């Protein structure tokens, strides 16, 4: 696939996306809690943005701000109440059946917990090869195996990884396996949900550097969801700050970090624990 690099196209175009959940009134919630917070709860409240090719947009916010709900809607794992989503110009919300499956192939996800997101009973080769088996069934076993081996090598895993099981690997290595699985179909859009927050400091830094490298190598277009401003400072081209379901500030990484406008952004920045400089 070749692209005209002078005219960046919108890989993802999201307009006025909204999702409301009804509050659960379970038998466990006491009367006072149920009445005081009765009614509905808007998780994502009119979110609009465009994601250009090779761009990484970080969505930053605290737990409960709606960032994961936003990601799930874009993957069409849950249906929005209102709004539009276009993937490379195609209406995602109108797609059905075969067309939807083809669009889903174009978007892949990197998950937070490398321990929970890999099937412990499958060999790594099978895990990374599974998307190929589903979306490119015409591929021969040998060809699939070659692709998987190449992909694993690109994320810095040794060759003998193929025939081993996830439990034989550390958290950082498992995250690499998860990245390989997400990238093997060469998706147009990668959605990463807190991909380094479960990792140790030194390993998390390795994963961030790998991510940067892959951004360059694959020309990744990425929606990167995180609660950590220092993490997104390392890899995002733009940052959207999300609070109570809305984007309260969006801008280039440099601008948001250095000249924040919204009080909530300022508050988040002030809460980042800083290490004293030498």
């Amino acid at each position, binding site marked *: 696939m070749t692209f005209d690099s002078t005219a960046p196209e919108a890989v993802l175009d999201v307009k006025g996306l909204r999702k409301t959940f009804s509050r659960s009134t379970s038998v466990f919630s006491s009367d006072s809690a149920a009445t005081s917070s009765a009614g509905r709860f808007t998780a994502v409240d009119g979110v609009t943005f465009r994601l250009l090719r090779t761009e990484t947009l970080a969505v930053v916010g605290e737990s409960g701000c709606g960032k994961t709900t936003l990601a799930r809607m874009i993957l069409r794992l849950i249906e929005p109440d209102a709004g539009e989503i276009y993937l490379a110009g195609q209406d995602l919300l109108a797609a059905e059946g075969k067309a939807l499956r083809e669009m889903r192939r174009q978007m892949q996800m990197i998950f937070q917990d490398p321990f929970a997101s890999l099937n412990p009973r499958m060999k790594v080769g099978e895990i990374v090869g599974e998307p190929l088996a589903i979306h490119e069934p015409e591929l021969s076993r040998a060809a699939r195996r070659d692709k998987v081996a190449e992909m694993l090598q690109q994320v810095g895993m040794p060759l003998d990884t193929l025939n081993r099981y996830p439990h034989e690997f550390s958290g950082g290595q498992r995250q690499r396996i998860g990245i390989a699985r997400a990238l093997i179909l060469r998706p147009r859009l990668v959605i990463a949900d807190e991909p380094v927050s479960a990792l140790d400091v030194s390993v998390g830094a390795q994963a961030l550097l790998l991510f940067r490298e892959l951004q360059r190598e694959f020309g990744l277009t990425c929606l990167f969801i995180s609660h950590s401003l*220092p993490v997104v400072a390392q890899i995002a081209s733009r940052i959207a700050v999300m609070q109570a379901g809305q984007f309260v500030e969006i801008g280039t990484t440099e601008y948001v970090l250095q000249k924040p406008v919204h009080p909530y952004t300022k508050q988040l920045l002030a809460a980042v624990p800083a*290490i004293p400089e030498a």
Partner: protein
Amino acid sequence: MSELLEVRGLTVELATAQGWVRPVNELSLRIGAGESLGLVGESGSGKTMLALALMGLLPDRAKVSGEAWLGTKAKEAEEVKEAREMRPAGSRPRQLKDLLQLTEREWREVRGREVAMVFQEPMTSLNPVMRSGAQIQEAIRAHYPRMHAKLVEYWVLEALRLAAVPETKTRSQQFPHQLSGGLRQRVMIAMAIAAGLADPGLEMTPQERRRPEEVLTGPRLLIADEPTTALDVTIQKQILDLLGELRRRLGLGLLFITHDLGVVAQVADRIAVIYAGRIIEEGPAREVLSHPRHPYTQGLLKSSPSLEPGALTPIPGSVPQLKALPPGCAFEPRCPLRREECAAGVPALRFIASEHSARCILV
């Protein structure tokens, strides 16, 4: 500053399928009264095992050796009493107890009252089917089964108030799922300090104690194991501020366990860096963070993302498996400055300054 805790040569051994491993290896550290020590390490470094050893909560099959001396509360009670009666401080020998030698019966006296712990995940450490107040009551009742119900209730609310929980009465009636993550962690902190607060050993009425804040007592030592890791940054900041406040008001020593150098910079007076069960660098927080001497500490700092984009140098490889530790310095296989001698033997802690030491032959 008087010594609160002194750990000497603490070793914890655990049986695994591959034989015995040592998650904590001849570890020594000290914490002064009212001081905060930040213990920094990655997963598998032994930091949680150390905490469990100091709480007497190691698994039964674990072998423990070494010493862990804790200045006891009795001594402090004595001092306060003397102060109240305007007697000059006596010259009694300092009372100490070795935590590693306590029987389970003795531990029941000490755990929760003199040494208390706050765990990482407030959702899994709280009982989901008990009201938060009842859980704090339980902590007090475990030590003072005969305390009057009214007084227990008083100390429950007092513990919640000190943990900066708003509307203490309402909150104490709620179940954990009705509380936010930050509030749950505050309830955990209230629970940790409650038994120490309610200590009737000081023979003072609550009213008497409440006025002069200095006479409030909590546990002597609070161990906090990654207490903010599961929380949002703004909430994390509030909890860190709260811990600082409690240190000041209750004079408690803090052992703060974390993998986050930014967090440790906010709470610690001194920092000890732990790697493969050994302290590899120790010193005043500012000094260790601004002039780290061990290559591992330097590597950790360089791999911590800051708000400055670009500057990020990870440490290659990963933390060694305990069952396959390198023969010499445990960091040698990952170290950018390694030499042949490094594999020869475990380097000793060397002093750079009177308070700052590192376990590296290059120091």
